């Protein structure tokens, strides 16, 4: 038996199928993975993401600490509550994890890291925090719900007080605020609008039931995976890990090389990679033949072989899509080996779907 979130008993009561995910017993689906996917694209769904690790970082030198720790630059965060997506690299520029960090005050930032990398992340963060006198506190007392979909913000706001509801609805994208003892942020992992809400563990079950009563569908990690892939968002462990760097993982946009004086972990290795020239790239694939793209399938291109890192059937597009790591000079058409047959796929720039609409041309 794995670790369980404060919502575990409720998931069982709701008929969820439970699977192991990074050492946690998590709901993969309730009734239909495709149905849950469509609920998020068309209305609203709620996910238990309490397995993710919330870490509070406190101290007068927390900003310079994070400017050294992360490949993206928290110097960009000036509005309290503003979030930043970043990779945390090792000295070789391999990705230790990807994370979200919120600027709360000049002495308090909050990071959310992946469940499966929790232990190594905390060890790495603590190792680097010591020199800056930054306190590192895991917030295992918090549950986290992701409420996602075109109706998500309006529904979730009804759980808040009459004063806090409109404040939550007025949050700009990628900004969070402390409202009535909850931290409500306009972030997500689905390509839809919505909130991620951190709350005391005891609040999670009543909040989930209240959302269900408002018509928000219970959604499992299966739908979360198809939604994030359609939305062009990477999954740690599939699309990047410590053996790959951001530039070959579709994450070059998260690396802040300016200002040049900022010496973050991995910078020297990244500069050497850029100076060396040609490297692999992470692209989107759309399967033109019948079948389903899956991770580790081999891809043949005009410039050599590549590999699928994440693949699935896209419920929105009703065809198979994937991310693949390919040689830089591979063209617009490739072939994927599925059980010994070479099937045709087209290279596209992710995302595939945004705000319920196909972005395929």
């Amino acid at each position, binding site marked *: 038996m794995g670790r369980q979130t404060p919502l575990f008993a409720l998931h069982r009561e709701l008929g969820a199928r439970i699977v192991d995910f990074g050492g946690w017993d998590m709901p993969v689906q309730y009734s239909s993975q495709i149905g849950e996917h469509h609920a998020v694209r068309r209305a609203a769904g709620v996910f238990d993401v309490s397995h993710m690790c919330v870490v509070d970082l406190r101290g007068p030198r927390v900003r310079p600490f994070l400017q050294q720790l992360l490949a993206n630059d928290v110097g960009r965060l000036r509005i309290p509550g503003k979030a930043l997506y970043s990779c945390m690299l090792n000295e070789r520029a391999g990705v230790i994890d990807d994370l979200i960090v919120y600027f709360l005050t000049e002495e308090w930032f909050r990071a959310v890291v992946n469940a499966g990398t929790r232990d190594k992340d905390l060890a790495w963060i603590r190792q680097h925090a010591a020199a800056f006198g930054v306190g590192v506190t895991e917030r295992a007392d918090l549950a986290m719900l992701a409420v996602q979909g075109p109706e998500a913000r309006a529904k979730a706001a009804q759980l808040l007080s009459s004063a806090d509801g409109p404040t939550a609805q007025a949050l700009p994208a990628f900004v969070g605020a402390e409202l009535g003892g909850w931290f409500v942020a306009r972030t997500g992992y689905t390509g839809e609008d919505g909130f991620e809400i951190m709350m005391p563990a005891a609040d999670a079950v009543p909040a989930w039931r209240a959302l269900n009563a408002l018509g928000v569908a219970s959604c499992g990690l299966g739908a979360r995976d198809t939604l994030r892939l359609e939305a062009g968002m990477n999954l740690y462990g599939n699309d990047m890990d410590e053996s790959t760097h951001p530039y070959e993982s579709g994450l070059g946009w998260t690396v802040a090389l300016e200002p040049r004086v900022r010496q973050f972990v991995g910078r020297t290795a990244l500069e050497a990679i850029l100076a060396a020239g040609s490297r692999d790239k992470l692209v989107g694939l759309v399967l033109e033949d019948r*079948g389903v793209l*899956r991770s580790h399938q081999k891809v043949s291109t005009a410039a050599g072989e590549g590999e699928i890192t994440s693949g699935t059937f896209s419920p929105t597009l009703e065809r198979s899509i994937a991310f693949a790591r390919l040689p830089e000079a591979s063209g617009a058409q490739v072939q994927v080996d599925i059980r010994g047959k070479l099937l045709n796929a087209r290279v596209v720039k992710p995302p595939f779907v945004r705000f319920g609409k196909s972005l395929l041309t």
Partner: protein
Amino acid sequence: MSNVPAELRYTRSHEWVRTLTDGTVEIGITDHAQHALGDLVFVEVPEAGRTVASGEACAVVESVKAASDVYAPFGGEVTAGNPKLADAPETVNSDPYGEGWLMRLKPAAGAIAAAGLLSAADYTKVQDAEGG
């Protein structure tokens, strides 16, 4: 509890077998199997004329999450793959013992008797032992 029709025979790998009036057999996956796989999005069935050996992977059913092989319960010659499943793989979820059949086989001589197929009651015990 999943549906296990009494008139069919079963394998431990969750296929069902129906003997048709002309002596050929129809093969599919059980209600238990389709439920465990979840929403099917792609089904690959064998072409007529292909000869398959007992235990050979001869069809593939793919859900959103994963691909699974379907095994020939005994050797024989494929007389048909279900043509409807290319456009409507979800038929296997909605009607696993009827319209969702996967393939029809002309069994090799003596192959069915040697296959050790399970009765509905014994297959139910297999499911129970798997916690399903």
